[in-house]
């Protein structure tokens, strides 16, 4: 009847007796869980609250979620279809991650449900230890699999969101802006780590080609600090830009960064630096042959 049991038998031939048992026992235990649905769900919800889990949710949401999770749980036990649960877990994650629910909470509530149900099975069958054993044999692997699926789905969903945010951040954080024909500026705001520095180089080199830039001004006024790796990366970026025929002017080196660079001994002989962005732009305009005249002058 189920994918789950088919797998169990194919992997464990010696447990054929268990297979016959499962055929018979799983429907029985599912029926039991359905019959006492409301009582078990309430016990579970109460234990979730007692354990201070899902505090971000209102009582109403809790009731709705617990009912849904409970029904799905029993359904997956019955059908062995993890896909339905996977789908539900992803859906649940999408809704609760923005409210700050943590991984341990999600895993916690699923494990609590597993325990509440196990306890109820235990009570029902304790008069017959042998039957109880077989019931638990049928129940435990299925329950563990569910807990596993929910945890994995939740973490995956979280990672997906983190990746999405990283991508968005990355796109925002390395703008390459044309200010005049053949002149680009690249303002760097915030901490430059290795990954961002790599991204920056890529964007810059592509930008040089796309805009046919001859001069690039990199302004690092907004960068609080650089370490040795990033400093070397900057030097390499300057060299690579030169290979593509563009001169790089670096502006806005803070006193801290200037001290760091000299102290860690990065080779700066090839770096062309100017105090601030304004000076850098003026120098770039000079290199490109622009003159900017105030009030009614013409820009050649």
């Amino acid at each position: 009847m189920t994918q789950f049991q088919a797998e169990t038998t194919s992997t464990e031939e010696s447990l054929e007796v268990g297979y016959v048992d499962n055929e018979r026992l799983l429907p029985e235990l599912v029926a039991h869980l359905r019959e006492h649905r409301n009582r078990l769900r309430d016990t579970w919800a109460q234990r979730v609250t007692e354990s201070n889990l899902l505090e971000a949710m209102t009582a109403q949401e809790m009731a709705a979620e617990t009912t849904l999770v409970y029904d799905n749980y029993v359904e997956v036990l019955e059908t062995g279809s993890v896909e339905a649960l996977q789908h539900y877990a992803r859906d649940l994650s999408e809704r609760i991650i923005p409210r700050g629910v943590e991984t341990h909470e999600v895993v916690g509530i699923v494990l609590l449900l597993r325990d509440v149900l196990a306890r109820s099975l235990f009570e029902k069958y304790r008069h017959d230890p042998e039957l109880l054993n077989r019931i638990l044999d049928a129940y435990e692997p299925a329950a563990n699999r569910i807990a596993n699926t929910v945890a994995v789905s939740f973490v995956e969903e979280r990672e997906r969101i983190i990746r999405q945010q990283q991508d968005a951040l990355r796109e925002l954080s390395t703008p390459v802006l044309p200010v005049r024909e053949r002149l680009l500026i690249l303002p760097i705001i915030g901490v430059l780590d290795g990954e961002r520095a790599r991204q920056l180089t890529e964007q810059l080199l592509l930008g040089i080609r796309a805009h046919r830039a001859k001069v690039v001004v990199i302004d690092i006024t907004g960068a609080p600090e650089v370490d040795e790796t990033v400093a070397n990366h900057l030097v390499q970026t300057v060299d690579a830009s030169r290979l593509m025929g563009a001169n790089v002017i670096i502006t806005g080196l803070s006193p801290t960064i200037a001290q760091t660079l000299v102290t860690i001994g990065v080779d700066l002989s090839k770096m062309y630096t100017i105090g601030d962005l304004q000076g850098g732009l003026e120098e770039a305009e000079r290199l490109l042959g622009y003159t900017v005249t105030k009030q009614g002058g013409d820009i050649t």
Partner: protein
Amino acid sequence: MEQGPAPVSILRQGPYLVASIHTALDDTQMVRFRHDLIEAIGHQRARGVIIDVAALDVLDSFGSRTLHDIAEMARLRGARTVIVGIQPDVAFAMVRLGMGTGTIPTALDLEEGIAFLNGATDMVPGSFGG
């Protein structure tokens, strides 16, 4: 080199030679290219050489070393060399492996390369290209 299209074409453009590398060259082809180009500088009395590497998506250390040698030899034969069309990926890979083009000038593309040579060889812009 004998069969198929030549991996490098050397064309005359006014007082300059334009050498376009069309595919990745192995070491033998690279040496052959060096030889052909240095010959051509003399025959054509070229004042400048533009080496276009836009089609290359990788440039190994032998390649960049050879380009450097060519530039040096061309200088001895009376021609300035400029390398054009280095792709972004290639540029960064070269720098990271510590094998820039040394002292050879580079420019973005053919047009820039010609403009550079015009400046470097004191040619009047527009005095060539017919």
